[in-house]
């Protein structure tokens, strides 16, 4: 009975064209891992060995008919994940490959919106393969490349043998500026242990507690208005729950299209529990997450990744939520 309750973890594999996604997929499919994986691919056309299951799909982004403009989901994923859950043998993990130009948001939102998918599977992590040589140019030229970095829980910085040390540092700084909580793994030919990219549980609220983003100094020079950046806020003064909810829900409603990801741990006045949330655009997952640890300072931490963050008066909004 336990078995049927277990949610199968789903890893989303993104990466701009030519970054090395196919190399990684081939590794997952050919390695003797002794696990049963299903790999949902686009025009891959190869059979897995070692018991893996390959499913061919076309990315189909559907708008939900619920009046929320940025609430899009992957229709093909809903169909395939619902189908896979009818299998007699249980899968250890499901890996979803996205096309090079895909925005990861609809994939992530699928797990918030579709109840069947949410009941039986869980979004484990978004893993983005990036080309150390070309990433900087791709980030400048393509929104999609920025989004793929912004949504990543893990960035596999691939082809590092083709750049020198200073070049590598520049790329890493660029990644961190977009997404301070992605774990960056240096690789050549995607040589990474599968343990480092599968079964990370990165989307669980429990993991939000680990968020310790690099608080970058604000060197926002030579940035375009629509560059993806991140902003973090910390407060030792407890927050007023009502004020926070008021501010935050309005913020997501009006600016949700530009806010790609949010994470936060909140200390509310009069509450003994820590409140944790994480969100994708307008969708959020939030819950009290147990008592604050004894002897540790209580504080609220909030991270935003998105476009035009500077124009949202986030600092002022957050300050106003502090209890008087």
């Amino acid at each position, binding site marked *: 009975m336990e078995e049927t309750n277990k949610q199968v973890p789903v890893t989303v594999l993104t990466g701009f064209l030519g970054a090395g996604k196919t190399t990684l997929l081939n590794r997952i499919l050919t390695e003797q891992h002794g696990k049963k994986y299903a790999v949902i691919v686009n025009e891959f056309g190869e059979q897995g060995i070692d018991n893996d299951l390959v*499913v061919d799909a076309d990315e189909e982004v559907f708008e*939900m*008919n*619920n009046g929320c403009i940025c609430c899009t989901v992957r*229709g093909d994923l809903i169909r395939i994940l619902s*189908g896979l859950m009818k*299998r*007699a*043998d249980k899968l250890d993990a499901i890996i979803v490959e996205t096309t090079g130009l895909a925005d990861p948001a609809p994939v992530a939102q699928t797990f918030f919106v579709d109840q069947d998918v949410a009941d039986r599977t869980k979004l484990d992590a978004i893993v983005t393969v990036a080309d150390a040589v070309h990433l900087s140019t791709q980030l400048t030229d393509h929104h999609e490349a920025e989004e793929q970095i912004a949504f990543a829980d893990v960035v596999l910085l691939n082809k590092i043998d083709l750049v020198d040390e200073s070049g590598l540092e520049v790329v890493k700084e660029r990644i961190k500026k977009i997404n301070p909580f992605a774990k960056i793994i240096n690789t050549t030919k995607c040589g990474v242990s599968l343990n480092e990219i599968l079964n990370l549980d990165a989307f669980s609220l429990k993991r939000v507690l680990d968020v310790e983003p690099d608080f970058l100094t604000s060197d926002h020079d030579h940035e375009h208005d629509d560059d993806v950046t991140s902003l973090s806020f910390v407060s030792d003064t407890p927050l007023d729950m009502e004020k926070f909810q008021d501010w935050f829900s309005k913020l997501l409603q009006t600016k949700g299209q530009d806010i790609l990801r949010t994470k936060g741990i909140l200390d509310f006045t009069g509450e003994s529990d820590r409140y944790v949330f994480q969100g994708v655009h307008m969708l959020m997952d939030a819950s009290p997450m147990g008592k604050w640890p004894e002897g540790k300072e209580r504080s609220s931490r909030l991270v935003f990744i998105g476009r035009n963050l500077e124009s949202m008066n986030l600092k002022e909004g957050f300050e106003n939520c502090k209890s008087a």
Partner: protein
Amino acid sequence: MKADTSQFPELDKTKFEQRGTEFKLGIPVTNAVTVGNSIVVGFGDGTVRIFTSGKSSEPIKAHKGIVLCMSKDGDNILTGGDDGRFLKISLDGKISEIGNFGTRWVDHVTANNGSLVCSSGNIVYLWSPNHKEPKLFEHNSTIGGIAFDAKGRRLAVSRYGGVTLWKKDYSNKWNSSELNWKGSHNKVIFSPDGKYLVTSMQENQLHFWRLKDKIDSAMSGYGAKIKSFAFVDDSKYLATSGAKEAVCWPFDGDGPVGREPICLPYVGNKLVTFVEPFPNENAILTGLSDGSVFLSEIEKASNTIIIRSFTEFEVSAIAVTKDCSHLLIGDMGGNILWTSIWDEEKK
């Protein structure tokens, strides 16, 4: 989905469970289809089993992975699987392959008068009788469902953004028209009288079109996606899953617009996951998320009897033989109840 069983201590077996045969196969039941006085069941390991009174039911290996969909074709059964194969299976277990789409799933199958139809991705394939090559109908998105009307002259194909309605003219040429409604449409059915077309949507609602004047409307208010719905008593009611009651919309007269549905409540307050009309009666078999199954008269909810008690697994298939002598219930935990409907003495 696990049910809370603590509130049902030591529930006695129903008379149907006592009289019938229970199979604990542990393989999710994906489909059950009536073919005459047999019921063919599809499973999540690619096998099918044929249940006929007085005969044993051995597993027949049809697909490599999952039997995704099934439909009746005369005295045979059609199946589609996640191995990309579209198969015809006879009641004596003989399998013939009609189509093979490799790593692409065969999501839906149907048949009418010897025409065999399946969908894979965004294409519907139609094999006319005595034709080796299928005719292809392409659509703008992956297909959510397919259905023939009773006469087989109209083929409805649901998709993202609505339904494409294919009509065969008298020179046997197929022409399409579009019925559009924003959102993603899944299963589609015609009313038996051919007047209405109904789809279930990705959102927790149904949509219907009255075909003579293309008037359309949503049926909403559900707590979950509507995975199962069917017309009852010719076309008088549309029974639907997706709520804690079996919601039955009136489709007689001018249809459901402005009218209230009849809601049939069940003990346990569980989600209805499957509805199956009881043949020739104004009654439905209702399967719940905890595995229990009830038989109810739509206009007289007090006439509800329990057929199967809970199993902890959601009901995923119910079928009744054509002669109404037997019924079969299957769930996601691979439990099957195959039972005669009437007491032996009353026969």
